[in-house]
């Protein structure tokens, strides 16, 4: 079965009361990129994954995991 990168960006973002646009601004990307990562359409680079985790105040392992 193929593996994919799951995430809890939306859950964490909602907890912090952030919109996709606000999170995108924090990370320095467009809302589109946050949208694609959040929806699992785009697998982020390590750099972007770390930035997202830092902006959402969680560890990268808590934010992303491998799912079958």
């Amino acid at each position, binding site marked *: 079965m193929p593996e994919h990168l799951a995430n809890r960006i939306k859950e964490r973002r909602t907890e912090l009361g952030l919109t996709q*646009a606000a999170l*995108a*601004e924090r990370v*320095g*990307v*467009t*809302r*589109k*990129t946050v*949208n*694609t*990562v*959040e*929806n699992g*359409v*785009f697998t*982020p*680079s390590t750099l*972007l994954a770390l930035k997202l985790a830092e902006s959402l105040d969680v560890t990268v392992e808590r934010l992303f995991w491998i799912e079958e």
Partner: protein
Amino acid sequence: MTERTISERADYLSRRRARSLPFLAIIYFTQQVTFLSALGNGPHRDVDHFKIGAWVVLSVVLLLALATKGFWLQPKPVRDLIDDESTRANRLDAMRIGFLFACSAALAAYFIAEFQPLTVGEAAHLVLTFGLGAALIRFGFLERRAHRDA
């Protein structure tokens, strides 16, 4: 220009590009119908030279728009933000598809030339049209999908 303005501007331009790319590709392909139907029919008339000139200009503009960040008249921070990680990934994928289509068009030109003589210009026209057109369509598709909410 504030950070918020830069983000909003980048998002707006990125959406506009995603919407316009498929239409640009259609215009680009439509422009080729006359040329492709007259393939191998001998020397071009003056009006054909004009059309080919227009095609070359459009091809160069589209190629530059695809290969660079585009939006050349926008401030650098906006251009940098539009060209973020997912856009670069989408562009690379579009280039990959464009390369495969260009190779396929080159193979097709090779086989067509076995039955009907083609000039170098005609063969190059085929390769560029299909390579660039396919890359544009793919880039447009990926960008539209990226903007779509789940």
